[in-house]
């Protein structure tokens, strides 16, 4: 990829976010935050013996 091609590509007009990408972002964040919250609660109420 030449320098000119590289610059042109990065400055191209943005592709709009597709619904499937929005779903991917939304579901990832949702599952991630809920899972972390569950782990934090478990960690607090059922601490692993050290």
């Amino acid at each position, binding site marked *: *990829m*030449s320098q000119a091609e590289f610059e042109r*590509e*990065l400055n191209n007009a*943005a*592709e709009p976010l597709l619904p499937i990408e929005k779903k991917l972002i939304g579901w990832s964040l949702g599952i*991630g935050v809920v899972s972390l919250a569950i*782990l934090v609660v478990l960690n607090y109420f059922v601490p*692993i013996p050290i």
Partner: protein
Amino acid sequence: MSDIAVKASDRIVAKDRLTEDWLSVAIGVLVFALALFSLSGTDLLGWAVTTSVYSNLASALGPFAKGYAWLGGGASLLATYAALLLVLSIGVAAHGADVRKFALAFTVVFAIAYASWIVGSYAYIAAVTPAEQQKFGIAWSLKLTNEGGFVVALLSGLVIANFLPRFANWLKEAIRPELYIKIAIVILGATVAVTAAGRLNLASSILIRGAAAIIEAYLIYWAVVYYVARKWFGFSREWSVPLASGISICGVAAAIATGGAIRARPAVPVLVSSLVVVFAVVEVLILPFLAQTFLWQEPLVAGAWIGLAVKTDGAAVAGGGITEALISAKAAAAGIKYQPGWILATTATVKVFIDIFIGVWAFILGYIWTNHIEKGPDKAKPSEIWERFPKFILGFVVVFAISLWLALGTTPDIAKALPAAAGEANVFRVIFFILTFFSIGVLSDFRKLWQQGFGKLAAVYFVSLFGFVIWVGLLISWLFFSGVKPPLAS
């Protein structure tokens, strides 16, 4: 776009990367197997060179085992160099590299990297406690411990990359940070197992807490960085996927695996990878010192944080080593002496956990892209999960499992002799860390950041890393590891 970082990263792409993974397993397991002979009283690796903190250079070097003291420091250094040259030359030959070029470049790489390590062990740099300063007859020191040599090696590499680009280019055949760190991680399995065997409950606890890192890297970091790249900076999907993976998961390996999964052109993840390396260097030069200043009373929070925040396996695990040295030094100055190995083990656990799922995540993205975004005949297949799985992790797990079994499931005599055997293997782990640090430095051409076009990529990286990844990583590490302390040394 013809800079050394990109050229060097080229080697890591697809098929070559897999070969390099298996090569690292073979070399790491070989070192471990040879070290295990000492359990039967046959010391095969005791000649390997170690460096002590010194004020008189003549006393700096020596062989690891007393049985080889007759060799002296110089001969033991030469023997270590020759052994590494032989094994690595065979390895890179199998990998299809030019062995003559490799041997010449490796000789110079080893010389500069190990010289940096020796410089880092000078008492004025490495001595930590007042007792040590008194022992060496010095009034002050930087208190970096002898692992300050890692920083010296990194800086040496940076000077070469940024001021001597032709020399850096000549060295490139032996500049293989991914290979060196993967070998080191395989060997590290023995040390982690010996450390874990001493406090099994604490080790299990770290493992379970480390699972939070997977959720954080894949589900939270990735989604946010992808959104930032797409929505705020207007990057295309082809650029945003490797960029998000590089910033949020595990640098080079993840950028290349997920770039391949969405069928991006090979140049895209390679360009992103070169940026990942530059930022990883910046992090390694800053974060361990921040951890020493602000987190020295929470050592495992610091270890987990480094694993979550620093991208690329090499920079993260080696950064964990520096963090352990710095925090142990500060704690020792305050009269607290932690058992060594726990901070580094925490960093390595977090990093290995994150690495395990690269293949799965790449498959999920590949499935979405080939079925919903760019539909075509080339669909993602479940077999890609295995193809993209970082195989060196298998080496780490095998070495860890065997060492744990030897420590807990065999005779007391073997269990007692195991730490020494693991220590012998650890000498090579340290040397591969040094080579990793130097190689990362040589790949880090900071002039790239000023190249036209690269600034926009760097801006996404900067905003995501310093505006989000580092701080969320700190919060999660704090939530799961605060109050969990390494055992005190007896």
